[in-house]
């Protein structure tokens, strides 16, 4: 039987690229802080060297992030309504997200204070981090916890939406955490070398490499499992899977540039020695992280129930 959709109207969302850019920035912020936490919370020495750049990167991206959020609002001047406690909507991830951003921002500022004007060598800074204890340690733990939630937040925000099969899945937050970490590593590959001594940086790269490889593999698992689940969960989910695979941002941006090529570079390239390759890898990882956010948002919006 022929089915001809003569006319189907869909009120479309006004979301533009600012939304995935916003998601990218908070993911980098949370991701780099989570990477730094390997040292500050879990005591892994190889990561000491990037703690300072991570904290600053985190702070800078966190400051930039709301700008893009605000730019995307119909009523930018009402931005502060989100953090008015009387408006707090316990069911809304965005309500939680607003407060999370504030609290996380305060924590980051407190952390950053430690590193501002310390004037000392990177060694002492690393020690500052390593020897952290008591109240200071607690601050690191709190920051880490906030970072984890923040990195999951876009996934939650999209994940709670019913009727959009690409979003409405419990794995989405974890997928966002995974890619946030990749973004954190990527950005630290880029900024690390400006801030750290070469030998220490190499230690960090050596340590981060297997993590990045694992995260990429994990991303593949998410992608495969999600695509398979979608393609067997009825028409609506199938349409979502199709929309995703038809998206160039997903196929080329995320999959090829953001995952497969970095995967090869990490495995076969000498990124420890070759700074061009390191930059390339870091850049591609970030492209991948952005493309993932872009394709999720817009392929998700494209696959609508009529």
């Amino acid at each position, binding site marked *: 039987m*022929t*089915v001809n959709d003569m006319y189907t109207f869909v009120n479309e969302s006004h979301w533009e690229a600012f939304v995935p850019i916003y998601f990218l920035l908070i993911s980098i912020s949370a991701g780099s802080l989570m990477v730094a936490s390997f040292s500050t919370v879990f005591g892994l020495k190889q990561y000491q060297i990037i703690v300072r750049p991570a904290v600053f990167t985190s702070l800078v991206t966190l400051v930039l992030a709301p700008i893009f959020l605000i730019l995307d609002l119909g009523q930018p001047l009402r931005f502060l309504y989100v953090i008015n406690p009387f408006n707090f909507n316990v069911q809304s991830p965005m309500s939680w997200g607003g407060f999370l951003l504030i609290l996380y921002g305060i924590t980051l500022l407190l952390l950053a204070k430690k590193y501002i004007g310390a004037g000392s060598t990177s060694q002492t800074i690393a020690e500052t981090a390593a020897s952290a204890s008591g109240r200071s340690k607690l601050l690191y733990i709190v920051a880490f916890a906030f970072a984890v939630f923040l990195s999951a937040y876009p996934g939650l925000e999209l994940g709670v939406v019913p009727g959009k099969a690409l979003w409405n899945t419990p794995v989405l937050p974890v997928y966002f955490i995974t890619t946030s970490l990749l973004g954190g590593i990527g950005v630290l590959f880029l900024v690390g070398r400006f801030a750290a001594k070469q030998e220490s940086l190499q230690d960090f790269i050596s340590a981060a490499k297997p993590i990045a490889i694992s995260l990429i593999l994990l991303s593949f698992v998410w992608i495969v499992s999600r695509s398979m689940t979608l393609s067997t969960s009825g028409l609506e989910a199938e349409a979502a899977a199709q929309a995703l695979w038809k998206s160039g941002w997903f196929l080329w941006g995320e999959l090829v540039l953001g995952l497969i090529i970095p995967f090869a570079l990490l495995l076969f390239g000498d990124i420890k020695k070759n700074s061009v390759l390191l930059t390339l890898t870091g850049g591609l990882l970030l492209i991948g992280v952005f493309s993932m956010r872009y394709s999720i948002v817009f392929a998700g919006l494209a696959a609508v129930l009529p």
Partner: protein
Amino acid sequence: MTSKGNSFSLSRRNFLKVSAAVSAGVGIGLGPSLLNLKKVSAAESEELANNLGNIEVKYTADVMCPSECGMEMWVQDGRIVKIYGNDSCPFNDGTCCAKGASGMQLVYSPERNKYPLIREGERGEGKFRRATWEEAIDYIGSKLTDIKKKYGAESVIMDAGDVTDRDHYYRVFHGYGTPNCVEHGSICDTPRRHGPKLMLGGKRIEPDVMRPLLVRQPDGSLKKDYTYYSKLIIYVGWNPFVATRINYESRGTVGAKVENGCKVIVVDPAHTNTASQADLWVPIRPGTDGDLFAAMLRYILENDDQYNPLRKYIDWSFKEFSVGWDEFEAEFKSWWSKIDPINGKPYFSLDWAADRTGLPSEQIQDIAHEYGLTKPAALVWGMQSPGHHYNGYPCSILGTALNIITGNMDVPGGAIDTELVKSDKGGKAKGSDFTKRKVKRLIDGQEVEAEIEYLHMDWYGDWPAAWDDVVGDYPRRFREGVNINYGPFKGYKYPIKGFMIRTGNPVMTGGNTNDWIDALTAKDGNGNYKVELVVNIDTLYLETGMYADVILPEASYAERMSLSDVYPSHQVLWMRDEVIKPLHESKAPTDIMNSIAKKLNKLGDSDLKGEDFWEKYKTQEDFVNEMLLPAPGRNHAGEPIPYPHLPLGYKLLGTPDSLEAGRVTIDHEKKVVQGEPVTAEWMRKNKGVAVWPMSWNRFKIFDKEEGKYVASKAVAKTSSKMFEFTFSGYNKYNKLIDETGIIPRGLKEIGYERYPNTFYWFETKWNPYTNKEYAKYKDEYPFQLICGRVHHAMTGTQMVPWLSETPVEGTWMPLNDAFKHKIIDPNAKGELEEVEKEFKAGTFCVGTIAINASDAETMGLKTGDLVILENPLGSQEKGKVFVTEGMRPGTIKLGFGTGGRFSPGLGPTSKHKDYTPNHSGLVDPNAHSPIMGMPCYADMIVKVIKD
């Protein structure tokens, strides 16, 4: 299940949609939706308006389309802010269609004619200068005076376009001395009305589905009755859900279906909106509806068995109320032995009809059987056929005969000739009396004196039987002039020198567009326009306006007063009121009438006197009161008896309440019951509507002495006052032929010497499947071209953006190219405001070409592809196809007046003229149906060329 790639949505991004969102509406196990529980009154609506602030509620009649529904408009600070249907008006029962609801975007359109304009460039260039009313009327007045002196007043045609509010214009031009005052009827659907007119004296046969009806109850009270009785409705080439001329057929058809289990059959080459809610869609070949009717009648006559309940098709009592059946039947049967030259089968047999209609003969048999057996039923045919075909006359005659012999005329749930039962109105307002004035004309050196009416260009010229004039044949007369063939002025010739065109847009709708343009721009040897004066009076600047010398801005329908012209099932009348004051410099028809009359008088024309015009009709209301005098004006008839206390058969005049209360004087000699006259004031006090009681079986009356029903002779307007199967209506035209020996051009064309006395049959034009003359075109031009109304987009409303946002069938779809234009759109406060908008491709509805999916596949076409349609006359039109399973293969459908619109007055729509098809561009300029001269809009064939 496959999903065709035809889907698109109004969106920037390409949405990937899950197909098959909507599927079969199975009626099984579903009950009625309790229509009659809903009772909202206009009073409640007024209360609501009061609660919402400083709002004045006004009741009026629409003119966004000729349905002219009863409307309720809310006015705030002198501006219309809301439009709804008037709950007190049973015709639309409070409903209001998309077009009606969008009225504000027309009233407040920036594209309106705002002030008088006088042409500066050549006709058609669209160059005008702003003028004052005085200047414009001066220009028109002196030209008219000049023409009258040189050529006689009959050289001026007053074409009032709409039926609506035409009487003012008729009056002033009748007064001026021309009998040639017309409206658009003859380019509407005259062959469709022909049968009812000949046989009943009526016009439009519609199903009895108008609800509520005000009905006299056994206890003597009057109640609104919501009960449906219809069991079968067959709509043939009639698409009331889209061409909403008869508003109640929208809710009534689905109401009868859901509440009363009525079966609905739609016979149409296109799967129309009406077909979408039908139980059966019968995709007949264009131009063969008469063939179907003929086969149905033959089947019924051959198989009727009064003793077999499964074959008792005919209700022979119809013979009591009719004359001439035997002659009709004999003539009809005489064809049964003749052989069709194309298919070699005997006429009107099932096989013959199957071959010609392209329908299975079993299906034709089923329809005939079901129609014969199911009672009450209504067979209803529409403008799209037979209205649009050369041979629509036999079709409408057969349809009328079928409704009569099956006993369905005017029974509850049956078929009603609405023309005969609607309220009378107008009376002397239109000034027909002026045409009784005598004038002298010189014929071959002889001075002849006779009444003006004998100078009528059609009735005493080439089209004596054209009751509704012949607008479609105007271009020829613009070029060649008029020959009077009959009557006292026989042999007189006159040119057409003035064309007053008000609201109509014949360049797009009056036949072939190029033919009209040619005629309006034709020049004589001296380089002067043959038609010396073209005046356009309209609210809107349409294509015809571009060819005018003077444009007068007419007040929009919300700014003027008049009466509705409508087709309810009984006498119901409502008033158009001045809801707001005329905008810009526009003027109401009464004022325009008076200013032209005054000017002519001032210029020395003593035929136009103050006592007939400006002194008599000082206000619009004076004119409306005159128009209301004859209401309701129908004879008291039918069951239940509308007014048991008043005599049957008498003509009723006056307000419903005065008749009800018996505040009447009865003239037994003239058989008239005169109540208190209906006035505009009375109307306003009664929510703008007058409703007199409904009754059925108005053609008959029970004769107690004889113990049976006999003809009431109170309703039918034939000469016998009964149903006529022998056509006495033609007698007076045959008399003209007898007197002069001149055979009218139309009759000559079909080889007739006289108008037939009873049943007749001839073939249509440009149909290779039924007319041997055209069989040779079959292969080269494989598509029959039909057109249909796109309710949203009749010629005068396409500047309304809301209507371009909502698609219709497959002929008005969002297939636009990207463009920018200023439109009026709601601002932040929800008020309409002019804004420049960017329209992305696929967001704005334009005229499209509906084509069958298999045909499209064969040609490799998909929705949105640009094609050229070319007819055998070499005319071409370009447009985008909309591919659908809902078209008969080998048939193409275009919207009427939707495409190729080139007047800038159409606003955003004019941006699409280069890729939207103008149906009228493909119409044969020389094909006019032979009796009433209607253009043959749906008799054409085309080939499709990929662009």
